[in-house]
């Protein structure tokens, strides 16, 4: 609800209202929209009020006809055309002529998109222009471009992300945000990020976690309203507001009767993959080595987890002539294991001793054994040396390559996908008309339950549309709950009025009957 000053409330309440308004235009090349909204502009705004007729107003759009007898707004030659050019900032201020302007309220702030229409009227023979101004959220920049934000860690209040998004992607300053910076809900996941969403969707998704809906108010500041219909009403219609009509429009659609909120729990669950070969290893070892240690990882990036791992020996180090060592396997952690091959101590000792013996045997004098009746001699030393050589060769022949495989069950940690469903009691499966909400910023059933129930009551209530025609009430905004004199509650989803000089505008309120929990 828009706050009115006491002077303004009194002026509206005394029954002799003298509605007044001002339409001001700003050159967007001189001052930014942000500067205009926060009051830090440097230019003198152009007062369009004397030129404006047929003013139609909704929170999303302001339209008026501009009488321009001197052609000062002609898009090509007009001296003041910059105030109605593409991107020009237009603001509407409304109040009462008996109250000083400082007490009036801004009811619209927006920009012209594209080019205004400008023609000579056949009837009045004057030059006139049809001007349409769009509110801040009605820009393609907020609703088409897709963005990816930075990451936010667990425990961060979602308001921090919201403010960062508003600054980075909506171009807002803190003074332009009416939403509290702390929303009282913290991220439950380790990493939280907006990916491939439009800025407006991102803001809406964040606020959805606390059942809020964003909108830009008449001042041009980002505000929000609460979707909970259990909250206290914003405005009890004062006596000076005359009610002209209370319509019940037709609505020929099925109402949503089931709301499903899907979210990821912050807990992770182990998801096993099929039992399989996780890694292979090949080792060449022997007498020259006391042992080998080989680390085997389950993936090249060292990120794959596995459980129940064990060693499968394809070719052993002992597949040679002699058993030369032992092979063992140890699972170091969930990401890798270690294969250990230990060569028996006697192998290098034997090899070393035999080499020494071989050298030593070379020094044995060539005492010969002469066989009877033959002319050949057999050197005894060579036979001893050959024995040493055989021992060395046996040890050498026992070295070789061994092949191993590590088998196990790879697993990954997966997020638990949970659901909260609010459903109308007593309906059958085939009668369900479901609305699904996916929001990964919700981290617990408690949060999701609140969103689901709030959304279901909202949807059910919105299936009972109402239209109220009353005297203009400058305090009303979108999302307000209004109490009628007979106690009925009405939620405002849209407002519209035609503004004419000297007349109290009739405000058309579209909305629905409020159901309370």
């Amino acid at each position, binding site marked *: 609800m828009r706050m009115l000053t006491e002077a303004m409330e009194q002026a509206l309440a005394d029954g002799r209202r003298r509605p007044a308004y001002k339409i001001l235009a700003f050159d967007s090349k001189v001052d930014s929209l942000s500067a205009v909204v926060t009051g830090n502009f440097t230019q003198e705004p152009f007062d369009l009020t004397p030129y404006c007729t047929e003013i139609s107003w909704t929170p999303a759009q302001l339209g008026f006809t501009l009488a321009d007898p001197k052609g000062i707004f002609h898009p090509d030659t007009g001296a003041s055309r910059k105030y109605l050019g593409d991107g020009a900032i237009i603001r509407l201020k409304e109040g009462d002529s008996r109250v000083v302007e400082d007490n009036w309220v801004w009811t619209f702030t927006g920009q012209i998109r594209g080019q205004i229409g400008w023609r000579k009227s056949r009837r009045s023979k004057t030059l006139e222009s049809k001007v349409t101004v769009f509110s801040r959220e009605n820009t393609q920049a907020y609703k088409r471009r*897709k963005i*990816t934000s930075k990451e936010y860690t667990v425990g961060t209040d979602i308001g921090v992300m919201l403010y960062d998004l508003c600054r980075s992607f909506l171009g807002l300053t803190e003074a332009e945000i009416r939403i509290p910076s702390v929303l009282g809900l913290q991220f439950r996941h380790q990493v939280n*990020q907006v*990916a*491939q969403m439009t800025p407006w969707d991102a803001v809406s998704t964040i606020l959805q976690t606390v059942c809020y809906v964003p909108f830009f108010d008449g001042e041009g500041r980002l505000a929000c309203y609460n979707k909970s*219909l259990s909250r206290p009403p914003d405005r009890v219609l004062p006596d000076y507001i005359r009610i002209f009509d209370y319509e019940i429009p037709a609505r020929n659609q099925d109402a949503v009767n089931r709301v499903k909120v899907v979210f*990821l*729990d912050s807990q992770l*669950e*182990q*998801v*096993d*993959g*099929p*039992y*399989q070969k996780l890694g292979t290893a090949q080792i060449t070892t022997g007498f020259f080595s006391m042992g080998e240690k080989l680390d085997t990882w389950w993936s090249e990036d060292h990120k794959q987890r596995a*459980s*129940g791992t064990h060693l499968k020996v394809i070719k052993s180090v002992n597949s040679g002539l002699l058993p030369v060592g032992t092979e063992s396997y140890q699972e170091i952690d969930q990401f890798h294991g270690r294969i250990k091959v230990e060569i028996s101590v006697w192998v290098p000792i034997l090899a070393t001793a035999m080499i020494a013996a071989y050298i030593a045997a070379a020094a044995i004098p060539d005492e010969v054994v002469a066989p009877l009746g033959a002319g050949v001699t057999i050197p005894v030393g060579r036979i001893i040396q050959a024995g040493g050589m055989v021992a060395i060769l046996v040890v050498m022949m026992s070295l070789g390559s061994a092949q191993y495989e590590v088998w196990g069950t790879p697993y*990954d940690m*997966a*997020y*638990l*996908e*949970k*659901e*909260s*469903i*609010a*459903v*109308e*009691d*007593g309906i059958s*499966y085939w009668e369900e008309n479901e609305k699904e909400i996916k929001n990964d910023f919700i981290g617990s*059933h408690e949060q*999701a*339950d609140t969103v*689901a*129930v709030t959304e*279901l*009551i909202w949807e*059910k209530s919105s299936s009972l549309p109402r239209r109220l025609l009353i005297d203009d009430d400058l305090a009303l905004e979108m999302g307000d709950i209004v109490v009628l004199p007979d106690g*009925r*509650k009405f939620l405002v989803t849209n407002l519209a009025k035609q503004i004419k000089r000297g007349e109290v505008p009739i405000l058309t309120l579209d909305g629905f*009957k*409020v*159901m*309370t*929990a």
Partner: protein
Amino acid sequence: MSIRKIIDWAASQADGEMTGTIASPFFQLYDDAEGWVWACDVDIGQPEVLRSVPVASNNREIIYAEEGKSVSLKKMNQGRWVIAGLAKTVRSTTHIIYVSFEEDLAQIVGHTLTGYLVRPFTYGELGTLSPGGYGSLPYGARGRFDAHGNLVEILES
């Protein structure tokens, strides 16, 4: 490719994906393309399970997955679902809240909790829930519990 671009790509790919759990042993199916493919039934949280969901041809290792494992489904152009791989998310508990509407009043009239949760046994449960008493299950052993905390089965660790 930057991390941000990879995330963007992954987010755009996420459209048309769904998570389910394997609800039957794998079997061979003679498909429309007149070829034998591996398939199984998949529980997607609806009253009826999806019948005979084929496994993507490039992912034959999936057929070794057991019943109850979470799988990622991808929608093909013809509107049929195919098992693309093991999922990064697992369907878990669902909280259903029943709301009645009368005149201007909405009222919560009941709620139920369905689904299951897999978690390691607590120290006390290792003694009370393991079939052979304390010591027959190792620390870190996991169990599948229903939404109300009752043990459904002991899972191999």
